[in-house]
């Protein structure tokens, strides 16, 4: 059965077409993706715990061990991004590789490497912050706001 597609009003065409798109459009494999994200995200966390235990065993305070762990994970992420491995991991694990601090590091290294051809200042320097910039902006702003609220409301 053919409707007279061309005689349909524009808005109707759009609505019918978007219905069609929703029928045809492939759904993401939600279970598979969630499973992969769980496994890889969990394993990166375990790796973090191993590193943290190592620093604790060497006598660092909990706070310092946490900082050292973050720096170590960031180093590993930068290295594996440089070697072209991290994007493969994320292709498999999705959020499992994006959400850990290693994903944050990857989001800094990847654009910096990519724009190396545009110079050390405006290429690498500026592009380090394409994704990290917004993360820092929203993170720092939120922390500043909650701390001020805490100060004025609770008067520590």
């Amino acid at each position, binding site marked *: 059965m053919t409707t007279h597609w061309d005689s349909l009003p524009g808005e109707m065409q759009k609505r019918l077409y978007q219905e069609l798109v929703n029928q045809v459009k492939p759904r993401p494999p939600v279970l598979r*993706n969630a499973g992969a994200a769980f496994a890889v995200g969990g394993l990166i966390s375990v790796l973090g715990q191993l590193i943290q235990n190592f620093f604790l065993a060497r006598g660092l305070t909990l706070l310092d061990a946490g900082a050292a762990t973050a720096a170590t994970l960031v180093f590993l992420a930068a290295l594996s991004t*440089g070697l072209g491995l991290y994007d493969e991991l994320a292709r498999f694990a999705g959020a499992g590789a994006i959400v850990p601090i290693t994903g944050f590091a990857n989001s*800094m290294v990847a654009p910096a490497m990519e724009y190396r051809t545009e110079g050390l200042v405006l290429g*690498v320097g500026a592009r380090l912050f394409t994704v990290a910039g917004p993360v820092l902006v929203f993170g720092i702003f939120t*922390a500043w706001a909650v701390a001020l609220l805490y100060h004025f409301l609770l008067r520590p």
Partner: protein
Amino acid sequence: MIFLKAFLVGGLLCVVAQLLMDLTSYKITPAHILVGFVAGGALLSALGLYQPLVNFAGAGATVPLTGFGHLLAQGAMEGVRQKGALGAFTGGVAATAAGITAAVVFGYLAALLFRPRG
């Protein structure tokens, strides 16, 4: 035991992000996820809800980016306790300096040493 807890909690936080990406609009990109997790972590932390998770799961709660938000918020609040309102400006970044500096330094070096492979 701490390893199992770290695995479960770290993994579950990632599953939440994955579902947010898969089940919502295409407009939710990885950048939005990272931003949302940092801000969300800071808020949960301020409400006193995140520290118990850190106590329970260790790296499982500190390695995901919500942990970064938690650290920022705890730093800023500690700053406030020590220096008053000025501490809100100094505490957050100070507490997360290691991660940020490492990302800048190693990121810059990686960009100099490696070439993207495409």
